[in-house]
């Protein structure tokens, strides 16, 4: 443990700013993935174990679009829409057939999707690590705030992810579609009896969740290596987020994602060998003290 270094860091403004910027950016990217996971679980009752693979596909779609065009905006768009369409395809042809069945069946079908996508990626793009690299348009000197270093691209990522989070929250709480989605999460039978086709609602929710994962994958492509199987670690972290934040709670997912992001950034200084462990410790504490999660309903 390097806890003394952590102590030195939190007592220096520059170090705090640097770690805060990194932690919040990582946290927001995690939020995009986890919010889709929790949304799909909340509305469809499906534990989407293949969610990490949609994140991975988002990164590969982004690479594929970035190569010929050189446009990061197009890359992110391709990653988001590509993952959303792929998700829609899986929802329509596979997952919609197992709604309401036990979680083992869901695990089995999702695991099949994970394996298929990993192999498809290897066939098309190869098994090697790939990296988009930070697009030249974003190669600006970092912001220096209070002596701390905030990379320009991190600030951009934080801005984009925060915008997506605001749009998601607005869409869920302030639009008719969002209200229908929340109602379908609670009582799909009554929503149907009011003349709303819940099959379409479910498909749309899955596509949105998949698109959020794809967006996160695309946005992360410049700062993380893109490799087959890249979805597994983000999937596990997303599950920790949904447990800490409360299954089905988007607000809880935001809080939990930021907590995990900050644990990762400050933990890498204070306890670099125990960062993953610390996340599970936090999860265990939440399960003991507030079993339904930070944003979950009690009872």
């Amino acid at each position, binding site marked *: 443990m390097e806890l003394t270094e952590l102590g030195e860091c939190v007592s220096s403004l520059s170090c705090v700013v640097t770690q805060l910027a990194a932690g919040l950016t990582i946290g927001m990217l995690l939020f995009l993935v986890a919010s889709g996971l929790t949304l799909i679980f909340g509305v469809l009752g499906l534990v989407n174990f293949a969610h990490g693979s949609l994140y991975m596909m988002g990164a590969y779609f982004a690479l594929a679009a970035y190569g010929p065009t050189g446009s990061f905006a197009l890359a992110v768009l391709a990653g988001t829409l590509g993952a959303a369409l792929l998700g829609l395809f899986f929802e329509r042809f596979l997952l919609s057939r197992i709604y309401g069945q036990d979680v083992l069946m869901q695990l089995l079908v999702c695991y099949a999707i994970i394996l298929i996508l990993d192999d498809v990626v290897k066939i098309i793009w190869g098994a090697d690590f790939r990296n988009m690299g930070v697009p030249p348009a974003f190669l600006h000197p970092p912001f220096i705030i209070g002596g701390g270093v905030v990379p320009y691209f991190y600030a951009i990522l934080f801005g984009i992810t925060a915008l997506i989070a605001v749009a998601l929250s607005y869409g869920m709480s302030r639009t008719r579609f969002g209200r229908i989605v929340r109602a379908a999460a609670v*009582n799909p039978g009554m929503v149907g*009896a009011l003349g709303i086709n819940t099959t379409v609602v479910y498909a749309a929710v899955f596509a949105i969740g998949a698109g959020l994962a794809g967006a996160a994958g695309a946005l992360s492509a410049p700062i993380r290596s893109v490799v087959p199987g890249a979805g597994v670690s983000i999937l596990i972290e997303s599950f920790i987020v949904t447990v800490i934040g409360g299954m089905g709670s988007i607000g809880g997912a935001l809080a939990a994602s930021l907590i995990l992001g900050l644990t990762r950034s400050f933990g890498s200084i204070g306890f670099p060998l125990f960062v993953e462990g610390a996340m599970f410790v936090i999860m265990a504490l939440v399960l003991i003290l507030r079993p339904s999660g930070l944003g979950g309903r009690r009872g």
Partner: protein
Amino acid sequence: MNDKGASELLVDGLDAAYGASQVLFGVKLEVERGETLALMGRNGAGKSTTFKAIAGLLPPRAGRVMVRGHDVAGQKPYRIARAGIAYVPEDRQVFPEHSVEENLEIAEREGVGGREWNRARAFEMFPMLQPLRGRMAGRLSGGEQQMLTIARSLMGNPAVLLLDEPSEGLAPLIVQQIGALIRRLRELGTTIILAEQNSRFCLAVATRVAVIDKGAVVWRGDVAQFRADPDVQARYLQV
């Protein structure tokens, strides 16, 4: 295809079952435009099941459900709703974490009855909901929730309202208010089927009566005939 021009809903030969146990045996019902039909019967006679089978929540095994001349039997609930059936379940089922206004908004659509009903009109018709429009529906009283579900079912501009036990569990004063409301809806030309055990309430608001017993309609006639026939009441309604 439309053998009875004026009937809003014609149910014929309707069979339904929960698993292996058959509950409805050839139920036949007919309501014409603007009528309020009371579907009466003892607890367990098949009133709620009839509604669920009409609304598609319990797909019928056999029979026709003609809404304005279109057979919707066996279709998905949302299609039956769009064809003009609005079902108000016994346990009301408001969306508890949505506001009153959001509950109405979710259901708002142009329907077979046109676009006459919308939120603004609902608040005129149900003035008691007006001050509650921002309140979570889960925090309303039972009577307010009942008003809300009736208002919500009108938002789809249906042909026929199916009200399942709207008076159940409510204080007498609230029951009177609901009765007055149903009469007002009838005066506006709304077609309603009312499933009730509370025969006083039913007879105060209905124009015609159908009695269901052991899953089949055993008596039908108008309210005056029903009142004049103590035998029916003794045989099928008293416990």
